[in-house]
């Protein structure tokens, strides 16, 4: 009898080229996505060693981190950013790598672009020099971030040197309540297992509440697997996956499509597969979430109170709470709904897809920004998402409410362009990291879902979006 396998085991096993005695493997990589920030040193390394990429057709490149989100016609004014974007372009030309450059409607955040183009397929191994590559695991792919040396290694050899990770199942059982989104589910998971809870594991997300999510919701969940410490998050393939993939530019066609769909039917964990760790959450108990601190695990349900370090017995944790309260300018034991925000950011590879924009627009429709909101940005994940939103009239809803409607890119998720927080400013953000200085030095980030971000923009403070 063949031993029962997890989804991760199956995709892993199908990609092992060779294995050393100590378990170190050469793992074959099907798809490498490339962006401007983590690739220049890798291309340079290839050139210095006089090497060629192994298989350029496996690569797809897009600039995203440095892209300005307005006045694109002026080009990139920051010379250092411009040089980095131009370097990507030059490298792609020199090595024959397909690139979706500025002005191409397919340009956008690398993790939005890949699935949108069908460049991410079930059962693939996908890497990118970016930790949120975990996003692509939503397709039953093994996808994770790598460093620049590994980017160069994959370019040169099509392989990665890897040891197998452990298997973790996170099962979200039952049904979430109305108005509770994928973002709330994943924040609740991180609150439960902590930011290091998934370290050393590939996480498979399962359970009815995950099965019920759209592909976009599944991408939001897998996107933040890395925020739970796991390089890779995965979700089994089902009809939802296959319908999403069908007909996209890079998806298989004709005969290949039939064959591929047949092969993908096996991309789920066997019923009796063993996991090294299993975590179960009750979907019905999950409420809309808001982070209060400087790590994604510092998260509360919207009706929660900001924690008190005096109640924490572990001195290292109590110290971390104290430091976070100080950085965030918050008082212990106050309700999170009493916290006012200055800026709102709707975007990032976590929440910038069409369904995210629809959810935010549904809240903003016919309303106006609260008077204390200095800036509310909506940054679509790609040019195609932007076009779609405009066809649906979402741009008008946002603009009428007082939001700014911008060009696609990473934007204020990490503030490498001009979109950023000033010191002390507080932001309701749909991105994935609330680290100190992430959105600008001294900036204070609270992670929320698109609906919750729009609700904060309208009321000026955190509020349960379901109550509006």
């Amino acid at each position, binding site marked *: 009898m063949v031993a029962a396998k997890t989804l991760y085991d199956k995709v892993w096993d199908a990609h092992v080229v060779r294995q050393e005695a100590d378990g170190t493997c050469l793992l074959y990589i099907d798809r490498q996505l490339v962006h401007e920030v983590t690739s220049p040193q890798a291309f340079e390394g290839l050139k210095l060693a006089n090497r060629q990429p192994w298989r350029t057709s496996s690569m797809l490149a897009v600039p995203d981190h440095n892209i300005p989100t307005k006045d694109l016609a002026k080009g990139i004014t920051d010379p250092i950013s411009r040089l980095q974007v131009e370097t990507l372009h030059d490298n792609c030309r020199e090595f024959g790598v397909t690139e979706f450059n500025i002005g191409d409607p397919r340009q956008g955040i690398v993790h939005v672009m890949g699935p949108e183009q069908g460049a991410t397929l079930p059962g693939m191994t996908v890497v990118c020099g970016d930790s949120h590559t975990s996003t692509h695991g939503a397709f039953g792919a093994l996808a994770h971030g790598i460093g620049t040396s590994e980017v160069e290694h994959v370019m*040169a050899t099509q392989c990665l040197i890897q040891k197998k990770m452990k298997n973790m199942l996170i099962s979200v059982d039952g049904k979430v309540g109305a108005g509770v989104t994928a973002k709330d589910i994943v924040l609740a998971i991180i609150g439960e297992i902590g930011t*290091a809870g998934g370290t050393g594991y590939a996480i498979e997300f399962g359970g009815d509440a995950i099965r019920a999510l759209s592909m976009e919701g599944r991408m939001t969940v897998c996107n933040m697997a890395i925020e739970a410490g796991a390089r890779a998050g995965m979700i089994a393939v089902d009809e939802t996956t296959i319908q999403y993939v069908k007909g996209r530019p890079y998806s298989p066609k004709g005969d290949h499509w039939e064959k591929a769909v047949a092969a993908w039917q096996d991309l789920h964990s066997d019923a009796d597969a063993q996991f090294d760790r299993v975590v179960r959450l009750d979907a019905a108990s999950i409420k809309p979430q808001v982070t209060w601190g400087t790590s994604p695990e510092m998260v509360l349900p919207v009706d929660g109170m900001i924690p008190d370090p005096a109640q924490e017995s572990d001195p290292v944790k109590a110290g971390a709470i104290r430091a976070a309260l100080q950085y965030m300018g918050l008082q212990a034991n106050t309700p999170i709904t009493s916290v006012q925000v200055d800026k709102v950011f709707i975007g990032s590879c976590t929440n910038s897809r069409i369904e995210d924009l629809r959810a935010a627009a549904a809240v903003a429709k016919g309303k106006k920004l609260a008077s204390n909101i200095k800036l509310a940005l909506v940054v679509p994940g790609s040019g195609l998402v932007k076009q779609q939103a405009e066809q649906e009239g979402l741009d008008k809803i946002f603009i009428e409410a007082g939001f700014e409607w911008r060009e696609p890119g990473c934007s204020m998720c990490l503030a490498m362009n001009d979109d950023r927080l000033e010191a002390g400013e507080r932001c309701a953000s749909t991105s994935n990291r609330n680290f100190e200085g992430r959105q600008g030095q001294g900036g204070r980030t609270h992670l929320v879902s698109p609906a919750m971000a729009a609700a904060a923009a309208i009321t000026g403070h955190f509020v349960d979006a379901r109550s509006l």
Partner: protein
Amino acid sequence: MDPFVVHTGVVVPLDRPNVDTDAIIPKQYLKSIKRTGFGPTLFDDWRYNEPGEPGMDHSKRQLNSAFVLNLPRYNHASILLGRENFGCGSSREHAVWALTDYGIRSVIAPSFADIFFNNSFKNGLLPIALDSAVIEQLFRETEAQQGYQLTVDLPNQQVVTPSGQTFDFKVDEFRKYCLVNGLDDIGLTLRHADEIRAYEARRQQQAPWLF
């Protein structure tokens, strides 16, 4: 890559958990297209009083005298002592480049984030995970004794304290081999080029849509 064999150096304690890669090297410095020059901006937001930008003369900026790296007793430290989940967050290898460019050769902590851990080995920076109780002891000793040094012995997989106490650590055989010999792993992998081609040929039969 510089080989790592045995290293003795001053220890600097960074007493906070979840030190993320945004803190190790803030995003504005990721615009560089080089691998070098990140040392002066290591821990930039914590290390200086005013915000920094690429292209500044960092030697002229005002240091935050309270930040541990700036205390004279930790001048020239080459071993960083950390807490849980060190290096969490992004995949930016710039975090490792900043540490090595500053002069750090080894980071000792109870646990590391996976991608940071991987990236370290590619750049001759040795991450060592030790038991929390041992880390606690090392924090106490480092803070109690000015100029406190540790010896990291990779071939024997031991950390040695000034009093001669030793703590064993684990490291993958393959990684150790590469680090001790300062080897470029692309060259090593390309020795198996035939196997990679054979795999590709097989795979192309089974899953032609991937090619």
